[in-house]
């Protein structure tokens, strides 16, 4: 993995860390390099340590690793926070003219660049980060011209003068390093390719998937890290005749989305931890009124307010079991950014085909991580829309009772009733969260109650056979060591396989995107000598579920520091876990 380059910029929130990182990531992507970004940020607007990290290679990269090659440090804390990842060959770009005196370990290469004064020479101190990017280009042998396009994209709206100044700032940074340092010994040489890539994060992929799937209505309440789905849709969904409402709270958001769905629109809400708690009240109503609704939960560290800007996969029990009574539902969890796109589309289809809530479960790491893909990974021609048993004026007749009333909750063999949306002649009916008869009218009759409960549950049984609930698989399918995971851990696991291979450890990886219904992994677990379940929570919620399914004890790797798994670190954990004794039955 010598081709890999790990770059980061860090400073205080408000220092323009995010936009600087994004510019460099885009430049690398335009140069035909693969990019994988990660962010460390605190829950505050200004101040507090924040960093934007980029791993880049000509080969595909889908994880972070424990290594940092080039660091742009705007504060001493940036150096201190990343000391563990820095190594003898690392170069640290900093501004020696600033008031803090950089403490840089001797074995590392200190690259002192007067970022602020060079930026001023180019037209303004605000461009000091761009000077640093130019310096980074020189150190890594990356052509500074690739920055130009990214700068145009970023600053084009502010006029050509601003763009030109920024280009100049980058060049001043590049030239300064060229003239004052000889860094060839570091051996960084960032190559380029002719490939065209797009660079996007998981939340953008969910938003894009929603539009592709025909979602027209979104209601949500701002909450980290789900908000950027709403921000993506705002300003784009209107082009397709849709609308976003920023509701007064999550209770309102899910009910607005429910109203829109009831009236026939493909509709979604998204939230995170604390917000999904508030929405729980309405889960049962969505299911009982048999309304198709996509509810997205971008997980973050909980419980309570927890660590709002940190990674966790702690809401599995919530989405599997949340809500009083028994709520038939589907739970779909994308395992990568491309899957964020495809599973969103699938979630809308499942919701309409089975007229019940579909939970789309992502996590913070996936939501803020940007990754490069060939555009064909999002081939819109492949998008299929299935609206299920939506009946029109001509078909309504088949579902009327003797008195001409529409049987909106007709008991059917597959558990799915016909759906007439408002405006359909003779389709008028009421739906309710109360237990009801076929007409949607309240009942407490024992037989009708049982029929309706069975009917709703039957949807899940129908879907079990009708739909594909497969898992994704990597590594050696014959290996005795089985590692199972869900959510965003997939990328790190795939890369961990390379480290494990180096140590002659054969592993089969199963990454599960469907959490309910889910593939039955009993045979796979039985066939393995030992199974390890990897997830970002403390209690092993998915491991619990799998133990229940397979009736055996499983080993667990749990990370709940708030930081996602890194490929190399995960490989070590797996090696260690495999050598431990199998837990007692």
């Amino acid at each position, binding site marked *: 993995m010598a081709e890999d380059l790990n770059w980061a910029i860090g400073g205080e929130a408000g220092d323009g860390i995010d936009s600087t990182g994004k510019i460099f990531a885009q430049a690398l992507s335009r140069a035909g390099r693969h990019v994988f970004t990660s962010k460390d940020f605190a829950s505050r607007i200004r101040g507090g340590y924040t960093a934007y990290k980029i791993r880049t290679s000509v080969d595909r990269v889908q994880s972070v690793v424990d290594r940092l090659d080039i660091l742009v440090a705007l504060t001493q804390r940036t150096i201190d926070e990343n000391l563990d990842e820095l190594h003898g060959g690392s170069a640290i770009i900093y501004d020696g003219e600033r008031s803090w005196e950089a403490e840089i370990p001797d074995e590392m290469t200190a690259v002192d660049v007067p970022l602020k004064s060079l930026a001023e020479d180019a037209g303004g101190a605000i461009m000091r980060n761009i000077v640093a990017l130019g310096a980074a280009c020189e150190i890594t042998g990356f052509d500074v011209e690739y920055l130009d396009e990214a700068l145009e994209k970023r600053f084009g709206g502010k006029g050509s003068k601003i763009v030109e100044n920024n280009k100049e700032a980058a060049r001043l940074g590049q030239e300064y390093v060229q003239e004052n340092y000889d860094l060839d010994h570091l051996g960084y040489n960032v190559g380029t390719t002719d490939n*065209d890539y797009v660079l996007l994060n998981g939340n953008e992929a969910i938003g894009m998937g929603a539009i592709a799937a025909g979602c027209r209505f979104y209601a949500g309440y701002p909450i980290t890290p789900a908000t950027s789905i709403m921000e993506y849709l705002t300003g784009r969904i209107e082009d397709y005749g849709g609308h976003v409402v920023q509701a007064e709270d999550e209770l309102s958001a899910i009910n607005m*989305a429910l109203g829109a769905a009831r009236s026939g629109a493909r509709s979604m809400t998204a939230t995170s931890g604390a917000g999904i708690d508030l929405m729980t009240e309405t889960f049962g109503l969505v299911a009982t009124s048999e309304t198709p609704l996509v509810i997205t939960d971008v997980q973050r560290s909980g419980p309570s307010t927890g660590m709002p800007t940190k990674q966790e996969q702690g809401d599995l029990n919530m989405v599997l079991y949340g809500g009083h009574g028994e709520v038939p539902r589907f739970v779909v969890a994308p395992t990568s950014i491309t899957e964020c796109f495809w599973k969103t589309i699938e979630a809308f289809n499942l919701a309409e085909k089975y007229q019940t809530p579909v939970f789309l479960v992502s996590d913070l790491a996936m939501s803020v991580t940007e990754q490069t893909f060939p555009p064909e990974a999002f081939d819109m021609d492949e998008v299929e829309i299935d609206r299920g048993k939506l009946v029109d004026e001509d078909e309504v007749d088949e579902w009327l009772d003797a008195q001409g009333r529409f049987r909106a909750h007709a008991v059917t063999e597959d558990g799915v009733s016909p759906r007439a949306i408002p405006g359909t002649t003779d389709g008028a009916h009421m739906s309710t969260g109360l237990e009801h008869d076929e007409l949607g009218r309240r009942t407490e009759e024992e037989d009708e109650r049982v029929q309706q409960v069975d009917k709703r549950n039957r949807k899940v049984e129908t879907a079990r056979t009708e739909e594909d609930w497969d898992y994704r698989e990597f590594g050696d399918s014959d290996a005795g060591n089985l590692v199972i995971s869900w959510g965003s851990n997939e990328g790190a696991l795939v890369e961990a396989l390379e480290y494990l291979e180096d140590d002659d450890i054969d592993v089969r990886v199963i990454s599960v995107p469907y959490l309910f219904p889910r593939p039955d992994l009993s045979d796979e677990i039985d066939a393995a000598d030992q199974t390890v379940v990897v997830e970002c929570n403390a209690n092993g919620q998915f491991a619990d579920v799998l133990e229940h399914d397979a009736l055996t004890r499983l080993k667990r790797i749990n990370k709940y520091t708030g930081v996602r798994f890194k490929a190399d670190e995960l490989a070590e954990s797996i090696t260690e876990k495999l050598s431990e004794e199998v837990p007692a039955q």
Partner: protein
Amino acid sequence: MSSDVRFTDFKSDKQPTWCPGCGDFGTMNGMMKALAETGNDPDNTFIVAGIGCSGKIGTYMHSYALHGVHGRALPVGTGVKMARPDLEVMVAGGDGDGYSIGAGHFVHAVRRNVDMSYVVMDNRIYGLTKGQASPTSRSDFETSTTPEGPKQPPVNPLALALASGASFIAQSFASDALRHQEIVQKAIEHDGFGFVNVFSPCVTFNDVDTYDYFRDNLVDLQEEDHDPNDYEAAKKVVLDSEKEYQGIMYQDENSVPYHEQHGVTEDMSDIPDSAPDDAMDLVREFY
């Protein structure tokens, strides 16, 4: 919409389980008549209700309807109207539903000015849970949970609406059938959020705010030369705690409903069977 719709078309064949004499009968009749009178029919009408005696209304009426959870009817109505500007949306609720658990939603629905009518059956008590104080109960009204009265002032829904930027505020009395129907009709015809607080007496648990009490005390604004377009006059009326008024307190004739403000005109239920033609542009944005 057909012109030969009768109000009985909005009636379901389910017999109400409201107590005999309940104000909700009159409230509902007026709503059905107003809907028919304004040219709507059950197939283009969506009624949303919350929980409580008032929430049962969707069962007794015939239209597209959702009977939701306590206090959340207004957000549901908002979603319906935004997705389907072509539908007539009516939200029905009670004083507990609307001014207690749903108070937050009320304020925001009012200020959003979504084009729907909101009819609140205000009986100043919790009926279905058998007689507890409601947000509009008088401060000295003795109930099972407030034996010496709530000892806090009642919510003033009219003033709350006005302070939240309401474009239509009215109050009616379930037993004054013609006036009630007329007022609900005006709320339906209003371009924006048409709010009607209806005195709908609870004959079982409230022996203070009775039919007789309202008959004796109700002042009709129509007879008072009140100009609903006069904001200052509206302020006086809604803040007047000495009298019980009937009529339209305030109407902003220039009101522009939310969906028009936001350029929403399309029927969102109508989607293509594949991704949009230019969908690859969405991908290319990420180059």
